[in-house]
């Protein structure tokens, strides 16, 4: 069994397949909106140095990643232990050495990784134009605008992903999440001191 199939199998027997998907979307959305908020915040502020913007955003991205990993790991370990104990009571046997015991130990790690990597990777993608510009690559428009566009695109894609899961119109679902991002942007413009 390949590593990916093994991971799928472990998630399925622990019933955590949908939890991983939910965490990916929820925390990915968190990462994208946080970056969008920070970048718009810098955009409406007095011109800050690009390296400062990158460092602030990167700091937030790493913090989001660490928060995602640690919070999911701690809560999932407790949940999986509880589920294993319940199953052991039903089976009247020790399942520690079985696939279920292995899955109860590995599933929290997988879930924590997805929960932490989703906001981190999405944030890093949004920061790409800022890095490129900082290393001397000339972009046709301001790197902050490109970063905002990437953030909106990724938020739209998360909506499309949700639409496909729910088996509803991907376009409608994508536009719904995009609207959330646009309302967030509007609120930031409204409440920040320009």
């Amino acid at each position, binding site marked *: 069994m390949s590593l990916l199939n093994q991971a799928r199998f472990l998630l399925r*027997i622990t019933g955590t397949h949908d939890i991983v998907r939910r965490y990916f979307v929820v925390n990915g959305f968190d990462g994208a909106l946080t970056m969008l908020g920070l970048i718009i915040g810098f955009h409406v502020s007095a011109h800050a140095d690009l390296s400062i913007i990158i460092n602030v955003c990167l700091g937030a991205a790493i913090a989001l990643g660490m928060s995602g990993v640690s919070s999911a790991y701690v809560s999932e370990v407790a949940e999986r232990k509880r589920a294993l104990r319940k199953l052991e009571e*039903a*089976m009247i046997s020790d399942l520690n*050495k079985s*696939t279920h015991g292995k899955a109860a130990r590995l599933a929290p790690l997988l879930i924590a990784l997805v929960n932490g990597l989703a906001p981190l990777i999405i944030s890093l993608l949004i920061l790409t134009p800022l890095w490129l510009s900082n290393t001397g690559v000339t972009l046709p428009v301001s790197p902050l605008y490109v970063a905002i566009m990437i953030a909106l695109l990724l938020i739209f894609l998360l909506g499309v992903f949700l639409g496909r899961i729910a088996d509803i119109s991907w376009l409608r679902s994508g536009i719904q999440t995009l609207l959330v991002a646009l309302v967030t942007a509007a609120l930031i413009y409204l409440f920040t001191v320009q």
Partner: protein
Amino acid sequence: MVYVKRIVLDVLKPHQPNALEFSQAIAEVGVDYRVRLTVLEVDENTETLRVEVEGGAIDFEAIQSAISGMGGSLHSIDEVEVQSETDVD
């Protein structure tokens, strides 16, 4: 030498892995194993199964280990068919 040709087991297992994966894992224990699995009862967290294994020389210990590896629990051996054969060296 006496070889086990057929064995019928009463097994309790969690809902996952499902019956297909469970029987496949048992069949993988031997090269010529044929497994017939029947779900007799389904409870909230468990399933009671009748597992029939046929093969040239069934390794009971290995089957038991495969069952417990997947979280199953062997309750009883309900039927056994063995055959005495002369080893040809």
